[in-house]
């Protein structure tokens, strides 16, 4: 087991390093850079000599590989550098932006899971074919709505027309209501689709018939037999959902002006704030790796078949 863990750890480190390197190369390859974008801005009225001086002071003109080594070195010591665009340390920025995103993402995911579960379970419990049909087409609908459009519509309707929740200067929880819904909608769709399919699969498996033959009611079977078995394979899409969660967060945070990593990513890309982007990539790769590791370790806990690997052949 420890060998397995070591191996996984090695792979995780590789993923981190490769993500760092790829993003470094991508950022280097872009036309212009943060310094140019910020200081070539005519509003600042700097002349070429001044800009050249600034470039020199950021050591932005040293050889790429030197910068690469330096950046890695800095990252290893926990120093993420300064944001050229905003003029504060990257670590401060991350610290300021992370909580909002964590809140948004975790609540969004939770709500998405609830949406998905309601859709999946209600549709398999309902005796009415039309309700079932209607519910099962909800994921397709959810997946078809542009997230930013949904956000803007929600704001218009619930905040500006119906005046139910303010978007400007809201309370700490009010602030999250609409964004969380916005984020949950696209995330819940694939979850619900997978769940509905899994439930359908499990419902046709013989052990469900056996449970029914014991005299168990539909609800009993659904909760005590189907639920866990159907949830298990859903875990496997966690990695993919993570990406969607981040993409969703960028858009949601931009629409709602939330102060999270997503919005920060959008702005940092716009200003090619390399230090910030580099840090974001490393963090997101870290999160991805950790999530996958947790899922991998969680599987045997939830599924007894995976506990003893050899037993699976019996």
């Amino acid at each position: 087991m420890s060998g397995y863990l070591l191996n996984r750890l090695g792979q995780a480190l590789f993923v981190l390093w490769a993500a760092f390197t790829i993003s470094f190369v991508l950022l280097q390859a872009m036309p212009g850079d943060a310094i140019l974008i910020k200081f070539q801005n005519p509003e600042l009225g700097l002349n070429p000599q001044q800009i050249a001086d600034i470039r020199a002071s950021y050591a932005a003109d040293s050889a790429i590989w030197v910068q690469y080594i330096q950046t890695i070195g800095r990252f290893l010591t926990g120093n993420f550098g300064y944001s050229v665009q905003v003029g504060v340390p990257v670590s401060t920025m991350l610290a300021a932006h992370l909580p909002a995103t964590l809140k948004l993402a975790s609540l969004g995911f939770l709500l998405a899971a609830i949406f998905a579960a309601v859709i999946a379970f209600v549709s398999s419990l309902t005796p009415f074919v039309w309700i079932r049909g209607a519910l099962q087409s909800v994921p397709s609908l959810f997946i078809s709505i542009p997230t930013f459009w949904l956000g803007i519509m929600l704001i218009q309707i619930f905040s500006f027309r119906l005046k139910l929740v303010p978007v400007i200067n809201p309370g700490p929880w009010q602030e999250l209501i609409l964004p969380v819904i916005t984020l949950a909608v696209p995330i819940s769709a694939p979850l619900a689709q997978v769940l509905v399919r899994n439930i359908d699969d499990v419902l046709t498996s013989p052990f469900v018939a056996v449970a029914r033959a014991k005299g168990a009611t539909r609800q009993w079977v659904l909760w005590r037999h189907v639920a866990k078995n159907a949830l298990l394979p859903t875990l496997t899409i966690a990695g993919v959902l993570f990406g969607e969660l981040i993409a969703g967060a960028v858009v949601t945070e931009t629409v709602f002006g939330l102060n999270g990593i997503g919005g920060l990513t959008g702005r940092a890309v716009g200003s090619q704030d390399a230090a910030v982007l580099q840090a974001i990539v490393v963090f997101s790769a870290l999160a991805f790796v950790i999530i996958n590791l947790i899922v991998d370790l969680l599987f045997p806990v939830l599924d007894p078949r995976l506990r003893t690997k050899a037993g699976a052949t019996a």
Partner: protein
Amino acid sequence: SDPVKGGTLIYLEQQAHTNLYPPAGGFYPNGGILNQITDKLTYQNPKTLEIEPWIAESWTVNADATEYTFKIRSGVTFSDGTPLDAAAVAKNYDVFGLGNKELKQPVSEVINNYERSEVVDPQTVKFYFKKPSPGFLQGTSVIGSGLVAASTLALPFEQLGDATKIIGSGPFVVDSETIGKELNLKAREEYAWGPAKLEHQGRPYLDGIKYIITGEDSVRIGALLAGQADFIRQVQAYDEKQVEAQDYQIYAPSTRGVNNSVVFRPDNPLVADVRVRKALLHATDAKEIVTTLFSANYPQATSIIASTALGYRDISAKLAFDPEKAKALLDEAGWTVGANGLRQKDGKELVLTAYESLPQPQNKETLQLVAQQWGKLGVKLTVLAGDSGSRIVDDLDPLKTPVSPAMVGRADPDVIKSQYYPKNRDVLRQKGGQSDKVQSFADDKLNGLLEALSSEPDREKRLAIAGEVQDYVVDQAYAIPIFEEPQAFAGAPYVQGIAFEAVGRPSFYSTWLAEH
């Protein structure tokens, strides 16, 4: 009714500030904050454009505008308690005028030919210039010349993004900041040094101001009208009607600078011929653009600078929309309509490219209309929406961007120099200017005029030169002015006493919130 004290103004800003080094205040979000937290040596009356006392009680200028002496008001302190005296002012201007290499602080665009300062006595400071610098007095009144405490000036440039570190002497101080999202200002109780001629004196009426970054146009306007905000920046012309329909107020202070224009980079062979540029100038129907996209707050341009700007000269006759003339000019220049409807010459097609400018109101639509108008002549204008990096890199290369939108605001004729002079913004991209991609283009006559403009001490003569430059730029068809750009704000009906400095940054010093 009498002003009411108290309350917090909720102000929605479109973009987060980038850096609060005062000379960087030209960027509107920066300026909008600096204007509340810093004071300037002088105050430019936005109505008369006269320079009035503020931190400086009085001043003298020598005949050739190379020496300025300011008498500093006593009892002024920065919010960290340090005194704002002659020494502090001198220190500020030394940095603004010369920059600080070590701390990466650049030179201010409004200060020309600065040499050194001299603290005559604790309340008197004197500035010396290498060459006449007649624009300096006005330059002391602009946002870029906000005075900050020594501790702020001692910070390296990249740390000036943190608003809490900016110590000014203004009516408000930074209370707290959530980077990229929110900024809270609170009133400074002991503030007693507002511009001398203002009616309102003493501390500001408001208790505080909350800046909230709200990027979405629709959210800003919606929130204002839904009663969730009090005051917002960047109201698009198409939203004005509904704002006014609900008795809300549109504020559109003029930026009093170079008009919103389309400029050429004559280094690009396609637009090197003045006849081509002239043709395009006459092919541009500014009136159509203004009526289609804008409102009465966006007057059609009648010169390259705003009609409210100092030194303005009405040259609308030279800007007439005349497609026939345009066609004739192009024909004359040898550009004939080819089979595909595009003008051609020597196997080359007249296809031009411009990047849209995000901060300018409806610039994408404006350029599309321009493209549509030029298209009728057989000239294609490709409008690009690039990322900032490509935009900036390409914008330096006249071959890639022969055409560009441009505008700048400042209430002094120097603004023309800011815009065109190769060492400043260099919108025409001259050799020896901002870009090393320029092959040969340079207009010495223009540059001579601009230098004269910034160093002619005699006011009358200076205004005459300003007029001459306007004529010259249009005669050369370097720029096609389109409209006079205001900064558009909207406020709730109960928001009173909003003031703007001369180029449209709001000042909330005298602002108060009526019962509502």
